[in-house]
């Protein structure tokens, strides 16, 4: 307006997020049958994974001294953390696409954070399937094992799930951030997802030590579920690490996600937009 003011005013970030998410949900519900199918797909995908493990355990009785119940608990912990992370962040997977199509330009011309706009561009309901399956497996596993149910232990369990979600999230966020420079890095992100999926749900002690070191310190899969599960199942004694490291595993999440957000902040400066 010529008088030097506009009608626009800042709004709280949380409100902007709610507005955008609500719009994405309304849009998603226009495709009802697709929604139900993806939800079912999510449940089936994780269910197949567990079925595979239970066949293995059924055949051999136990894996690395872990009973079926214990493995289910560990597996459930991993899938729950995964589902918890994926629900709000599934759209990280299409960051490179939004950059290539120019959609990301739009995020930068709107009065809201670009990461938040990316995450709320669409609701991908298959992720709810992941979470539901994860919780179901976790509960089923927990009923089979000698689990400490004191409030302290349950609180630790909750923190472990959140921490695990953040560990996986930090890897995916950092990897997605590279899209600003590499344009396409789907393979890297699928690689991380593959590692999480293939190694995250098993007792890592069954692997050779080099693999264990890689899965603990390079791609910190161990922090997602294995270390907290050791604590909750009273198995810290069999770890090569000091028990306090396992106890502190839930702290890795917040630490790594902060680092990953830093990566995002530095990489977004390299954004070059698309050709036109």
């Amino acid at each position, binding site marked *: 307006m010529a008088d030097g003011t506009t*009608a626009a005013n800042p709004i709280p970030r949380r409100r902007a997020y709610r507005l955008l998410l609500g719009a994405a949900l309304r849009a998603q519900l226009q495709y009802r049958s697709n929604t139900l199918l993806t939800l079912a797909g999510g449940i089936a995908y994780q269910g197949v994974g567990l079925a595979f493990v239970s066949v293995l355990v059924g055949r051999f009785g136990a894996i690395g001294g872990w009973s079926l119940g214990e493995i289910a608990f560990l597996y459930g912990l991993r899938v729950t953390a995964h589902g918890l992370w994926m629900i709000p962040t599934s759209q990280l997977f299409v960051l490179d696409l939004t950059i290539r199509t120019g959609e990301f330009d739009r995020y*930068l011309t709107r009065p809201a954070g670009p990461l938040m706009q990316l995450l709320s561009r669409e609701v991908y309901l298959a992720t709810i399937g992941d979470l539901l399956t994860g919780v179901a497996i976790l509960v089923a596993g927990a009923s089979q094992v000698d689990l400490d149910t004191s409030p302290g232990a349950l609180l630790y369990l909750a923190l472990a799930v959140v921490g695990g979600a953040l560990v996986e999230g930090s890897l995916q966020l950092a990897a997605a951030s590279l899209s600003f420079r590499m344009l396409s890095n789907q393979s890297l992100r699928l690689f991380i997802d593959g590692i999480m999926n293939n190694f995250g749900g098993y007792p890592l002690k069954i692997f050779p030590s080099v693999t264990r070191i890689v899965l603990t310190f390079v791609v910190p899969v161990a922090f997602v579920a294995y270390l907290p599960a050791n604590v909750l199942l009273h198995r810290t004694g069999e770890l090569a690490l000091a028990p306090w490291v396992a106890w502190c595993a839930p702290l890795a999440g917040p630490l790594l996600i902060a680092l990953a957000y830093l990566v995002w902040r530095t990489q977004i400066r390299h954004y070059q937009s698309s050709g036109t």
Partner: protein
Amino acid sequence: MPTPKPIIQVEGLAKEFRRPKRIEGPFGGIRTLFTRQYVSKLAVDGIDFTVDEGELIGYLGPNGAGKSTTIKILTGILQPTQGSVEVAGVVPWKERERNARNIGVVFGQRTQLWWDLPLRDSLELIGKLYGVERDRHRANIERFTELLGLAAFIDTPVRQLSLGQRMRGDLAAAMLPEPRILYLDEPTIGLDVVAKERIRAFIATLNKDEGTTVILTTHDLDDVEKLCRRIVLIDGGKVLYDGSVEKLKARYAPRRRLVVQLAEGARWRGVAMPGVEEAPPEEDAEPGTVALLFDPETAASAEVIAAVLADHQVTDLSIVEPELEGVVHRIYAAREAVA
């Protein structure tokens, strides 16, 4: 009264794009990932201009001239390599969200509406996202619905709208928060004549009644001729021309065209006047028409006409002003000849 500060100030703006150099040969793709060699391209190479509040300027240039890059810097999408920019007192890439609240952006090729939601939903959402006070927003939606004729399709999902309808929706969305500056990138691309006219009328109204500053990038010079008083022409990342449409024509196409329709049987004898010459015949010219080119600075129109009439029997006469299209075409062509 002191002159008000320009609403847009661009000084020494430069933007260099760097990409890793592609390495050919075995494992080229992987080696490209780790190379430290870069190919750089200077898309914008030292641009200066200012825009006053309430101006409606055409920002023109051939493909790859640096238009989009400039607009992306002004809108906060890109950071420049060098130079300073201030838009309504804000450095766009430093205070991106504050800048976003001052501007409206319409890219003709893409929509900012929610594809799967009815247009009305998108418009409501924009109001909330921009924190527009509820009653003011409602009044604005009503006003734009009328101005742009949205009523017929406001409850249709955006994905089902025609290009022209979608464009009107996008314009409304951009203008609802009452931005001080509106950036339009190819707003009439792919539209039919009626739809184009409607959009042009809307832009002109905004500029006149609301005083919205408009920066229009387009290849459709009809848009420019009908809307803009001033144009900034860039090429090779530099400003080639900055001024009024008339002056541009005077500089690059100073000559007018006088088209003469001779009476049947009349023969063309020519006109001997300094500064007047015969134009080469056009392909689709009717028989018996002759076109003359003259510069009104050296030969007054009336004198040229008098000279023609003195020697010939004529049924019709018309003077054709140079069109911007032709002028810009000549500028681009001259540039290519040099390159």
